[in-house]
């Protein structure tokens, strides 16, 4: 159990700056997810915390102690790798107990801790097997077991679920989350998958090009993205975003006058904006944006409709079944109160 603090952390590879001064405080017991597209620097940040990458500038501290010059093994952290990184010549039991053996713990203590971790992770029948004899999900659990037995101050996860198939990923997601709720160990989790981030995190740091774009709780990011990047990155299917112009307290876009209650707090006449509305906040209506249905994807509980208004593609998510079919002309209206307006030039949220 510990706090983690990044303070103005920089990193360059040669002439390429990959991190431009990251500051981030992670609370004791918090599940922090770093999410962003590949190349945004999230893995580098994690590896610097792990001590696998040198810190270019700034300070990283664990539990108040600056660890810039502390060896990985003395940072009291445990890491789960995307590729599992299990020792192939050791059994599951030896893999999990390896760090304790290196620490010269008593064999009785090692056995006890490995047995305990195996029980938590349902690995008891596999303790004498080698990694090559396990399935992907089992290997991933062994990697987690290796982290658990150490009882570290911080768990680090580097895209741990990326190598698993879709179904297993959902199951493991829940397992990791349950594990965290049980152990309450401070966790830093890196992923490029925003659904993983949304479902698991206490707080999410959305990263892009070496900067944190927004930091907040999952639904806060979903409901109030501070800029276009976060708006587009968080949410699946992605938010509809199209160009508009502010006119007399509303926004003219796609040949319609659209409500924009948020404008009360900002925005000037004639300002060019990006108008954002999530698929579930777009409704079929008798007037509004004129569009043509391109594709209907029924998913049972809800239906996703892809439509085109001019050259702009719009996605609409409705509860229940759709009565529209491909080629139908429809009108779409955004629900007032669920609208996101961004300045077209800066990409920042208005109001």
């Amino acid at each position, binding site marked *: 159990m510990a706090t983690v603090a990044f303070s103005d952390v920089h990193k360059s590879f040669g002439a390429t700056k990959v991190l431009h001064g990251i500051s981030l405080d992670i609370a004791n017991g918090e599940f922090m997810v770093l999410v962003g597209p590949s190349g945004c620097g999230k893995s580098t940040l994690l590896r610097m915390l792990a001590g*696998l990458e040198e810190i270019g500038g700034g300070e990283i501290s664990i539990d108040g102690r600056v660890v810039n010059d502390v060896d990985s*093994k003395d940072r009291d*952290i445990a*890491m789960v790798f995307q*590729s599992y*990184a*299990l020792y*192939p010549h050791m059994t599951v039991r030896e893999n999990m107990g*390896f760090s304790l053996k290196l*620490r010269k713990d008593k064999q009785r203590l090692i056995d006890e801790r490995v047995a305990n971790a195996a029980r938590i992770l349902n690995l008891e029948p596999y303790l004498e097997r080698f990694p090559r004899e396990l399935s992907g999900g089992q290997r991933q659990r062994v990697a987690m077991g290796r982290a658990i037995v150490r009882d570290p101050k911080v768990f680090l996860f580097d895209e741990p679920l990326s190598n698993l198939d879709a179904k297993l990923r959902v199951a493991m997601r829940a397992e990791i989350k349950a594990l965290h709720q049980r152990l309450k160990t401070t966790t830093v989790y890196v992923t490029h998958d925003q659904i993983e981030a949304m479902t698991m995190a206490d707080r999410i740091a959305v990263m892009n090009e070496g900067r944190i774009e927004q930091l907040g709780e999952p639904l806060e990011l979903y409901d109030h993205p501070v800029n276009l990047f976060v708006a587009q990155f968080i949410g699946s299917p992605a938010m509809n975003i199209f160009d508009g112009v502010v006119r007399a307290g509303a926004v003219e876009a796609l040949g319609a006058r659209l409500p924009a209650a948020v404008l009360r707090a900002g925005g000037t006449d004639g300002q060019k904006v990006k108008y954002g509305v999530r698929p579930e906040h777009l409704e079929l209506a008798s007037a509004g944006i004129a569009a043509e249905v391109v594709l209907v994807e029924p998913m049972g509980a809800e239906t996703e409709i892809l439509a085109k208004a001019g050259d702009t593609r719009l996605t609409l998510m409705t509860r229940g079944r759709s009565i529209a079919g491909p080629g139908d002309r429809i009108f779409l209206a955004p629900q007032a109160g669920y609208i996101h307006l961004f300045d077209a030039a800066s990409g920042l949220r208005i109001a």
Partner: protein
Amino acid sequence: MNKIVREAKLWLIAIPILLWTLLPIYHIFLFSISTKDSAFSGALWPAKPTLHNFAVVFRQDHFYLHHFWAQIWNSLWIAVAVGVLTLAVATCAAFAISRLKVKGGRVVMNAALFTYFIPAAFLAVPMYKAMGTYGLLNSRWSLVLAMVTLASPYAIWVLKQASDKLPWELDEAARIDGATPLQLFRLVYVPLMMPSLVAIGTYALILAWNEYLYAFLLLSHENTIPLAVGLGHFLASDDSPWELLMATALIYAAPPAAIYYAFRRYMVGGLTAGAVKT
């Protein structure tokens, strides 16, 4: 149909190669079980096959064979020493260059490659001079050191390539687990490199076992020379005892064959299966 044609082509290549390889060995075998007067009869099988020649060799019952057991012991001692020393040098070098990323690693690798531009025979005389300077001539160590020198560059090169294929995450995982570089070497690196290590150790061992030129130059006492040089002595006279030479040669060829057979399972990979998702 296509498959049959392809297989037939393979057989067409394989059979001549097999004959090409086995024919001389059969010839050696034929000589070694023939009596002295029938050795050159040209028959495909001797009229009276005998194991007498082997008995002569084992009892050291011939002028050229007085030191047979000493010489085969020398061969063995030298070959094992070369195998072990080459492995020690090359494994440490490959680990340092590939896993610890020591500075200057590239230079060492290029230097290792560069030594291949110089034929070993070229270095024989300088090596003789050097061993003389250190007073090692006629000591088995002179040949061991010379052979380790010749075998190391290739061994380093191969082991470095094999090391590079080990997943890097394993090193990182071990570092986080608290392993020092030496523990990483002992507990993770060496076990995973075992197939390559056995292959390279065997390579160095057999290189030394088969060496003639350096052995001939550096060692000259009947008691210090390895069997390869001892075999050469058979040809010193006009009337060589061919049947004894071939019987000795067959015995001499047996250990490498046995080693290959014993270690064949290490010559294939597969030990790293399951380490990382590929």
